[in-house]
């Protein structure tokens, strides 16, 4: 009796292949497939009806989808830039501290230790128009007469959400930039001083180019993070009021699980993933070119 023998490398890789197939590939393919069907969670038989690119066309022509898309990009742009500036400032200050720096570095990480859901609740309370800290403070300082409807007005709500995002994640930038500052070679800085640079010029022409790769790494990580933002928004505004803080994933989540239109949600999800991929590619390009600037990569 002869039995077909598998080559040893395949045998050794088999467990990993099986797990990857079961955990990643099958759900991925299934969701991709379902995005071409009118799959409705409550009506399983709809999974077998092929409707081609109908869902994609529908998403592409749905103004609500594009508004959420645009708002996500807006949130991403504002939050990332704010976080970068604040993180840079924070890192520069902490790097100058000589005593108790460890303690500060640890304290800097605190916001990252909270669940985003809790942060959402906390900021929802802070920005609450009746009992919130912000309004209380503004009113007792006499800065405003009336309560400001932070989470009701669309722009203000987006602002509040950005505040929450910035609060939790500035430390990602701060930590990575701080690592860059620790690795910063001192000699070129001294050379710059002798060459006539003011502290600002030293920073602009020597320190900053060196930090750029670190900043781009943080940007890449955070762009993925923000592009899939869900929890904080869900808790703070639930995409409301009247969809004015709706982001891609709150829209997708609602479509999939509240409206149970899974096929359509999956189609939107795949478009959203393209956005994430685009940002990642963009920042990695930037990272590569910044590293090449420094003569670090080729």
């Amino acid at each position, binding site marked *: 009796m002869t039995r077909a023998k598998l080559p040893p490398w395949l045998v050794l890789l088999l467990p990993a292949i099986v797990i990857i197939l079961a955990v990643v590939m099958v759900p991925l393919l299934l969701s991709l497939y379902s995005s071409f069907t009118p799959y409705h969670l409550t009506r399983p038989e709809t999974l077998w009806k092929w409707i081609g690119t109908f869902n994609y066309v529908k998403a592409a022509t749905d103004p609500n989808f594009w508004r959420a898309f645009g708002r996500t990009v807006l949130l991403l742009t504002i939050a990332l830039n704010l976080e970068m500036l604040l993180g840079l400032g924070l890192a520069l200050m902490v790097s100058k501290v000589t005593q108790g720096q460890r303690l500060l570095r640890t304290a800097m990480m605190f916001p990252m230790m909270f669940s985003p859901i809790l942060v959402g609740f906390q900021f929802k309370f802070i920005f609450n128009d009746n009992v919130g800290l912000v309004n209380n403070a503004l009113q007792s300082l006499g800065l405003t007469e009336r309560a400001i409807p932070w989470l009701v007005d669309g722009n203000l709500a987006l602002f509040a959400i950005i505040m929450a995002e910035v609060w939790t994640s500035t430390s990602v930038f701060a930590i990575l930039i701080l690592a860059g500052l620790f690795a910063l070679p001192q000699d070129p800085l001294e050379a710059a*001083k002798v060459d006539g640079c003011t502290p600002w010029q030293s920073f602009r022409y020597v320190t900053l180019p060196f930090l750029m790769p670190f900043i781009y790494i943080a940007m890449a990580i955070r762009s993925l993070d923000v592009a899939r933002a869900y929890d904080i928004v869900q808790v703070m505004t639930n995409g409301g009021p009247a969809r004015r803080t709706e982001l891609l994933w709150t829209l997708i989540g609602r479509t999939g699980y509240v409206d149970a239109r899974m096929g359509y949600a999956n189609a939107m999800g795949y478009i959203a993933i393209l956005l994430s991929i685009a940002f990642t590619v963009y920042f990695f390009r930037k990272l590569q070119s910044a590293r090449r*600037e420094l003569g670090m990569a080729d």
Partner: protein
Amino acid sequence: MAQVHLKDVVKRYGALDVVHSINLSISEGEFVVLVGPSGCGKSTTLRMVAGLEAISDGEVRIGDRVVNDLPPRERNLAMVFQNYALYPHMTVRENLGFSLKIAKRSQREIDAAVNEAAEILALTPLMDRKPGALSGGQRQRVAMGRAIVRQPDVFLFDEPLSNLDAKLRTQMRVEIKKLHQKVGSTVIYVTHDQIEAMTLADRIVIMRDGHIVQVGTPLEVFERPLNTFVATFIGSPPMNLLSGVIQDGAVVLADGTTIPTPPDLRVAEGRKVSLGIRADNIMPEGHSLPPSAHMAQVEMPVLLTEPLGTETLLFTQLAGTEVQAKMLNPRPVRPGEVLRFGIALDKCHLFDAETGASLRS
């Protein structure tokens, strides 16, 4: 171009003094070399002049300005660092022109100055490379170029050649000397290599443990070392030192060998001394010590030879101390062979055995 004056300059780290009250006046256009063993405070001194290190006490003047509290950018000097400290993200051209760009010079002026420096240092074919793509010697030349472009009052060099191989070092030494003759700026140059010091300097400043031990022209410090430290530090191979006692106008060594004292020295009977003889002044007979009235003869066994081509170094022994001698027009010498050596007494030195201070005064 400017004078540089250091007056009672001290550098203190906490309670630790690493530079003790240094005084030094450097005139316009002078090439001064700070030399000394590792850790003696050469770099620290240089960095205080540059403004990269705070001055704990005393006063540094450049030209007629006290610069103690001026940041480096207001001192108008250029520095070449030991590891070059080039800007890694800028091309050679940008590295060279950076200080002028910061000074807001016109692009035409910058190009002219950069191209001239590139010409002098043969950097023209490398202008668009980044420092990462240069060899050590090329980086060193870029660092030099960056300094030249600025046309500073004072050039500071901190061991700029120590990362180069021997041949390149010799070559760059000549380049630096030429450069100084051409631009004529004041130069302070730090090295721990006494050959570099001897060949480059108008004046050598020998430092040890944060003190200045001796200041003088290369010939002065070579011919009239103030103490055994300078005597053994300057000159290669280092000066031989033999301990002995003065008796009847001669130095009596441990094994009873008697060598007359140098003719121009009067030393008290019974004083403990070190007799200093350079290898060039102790040679086997028949191997060309210039004839002199003041010669002494000793017999020594040759333990080891180091042929250098035109001359051979002989490692011998006298009164239990190793003595290095030179043999010009060398012939093969067997280890263990005993030779008669002539010592040129008028070139010998006497130092106090305890303090090491020269007895020539």
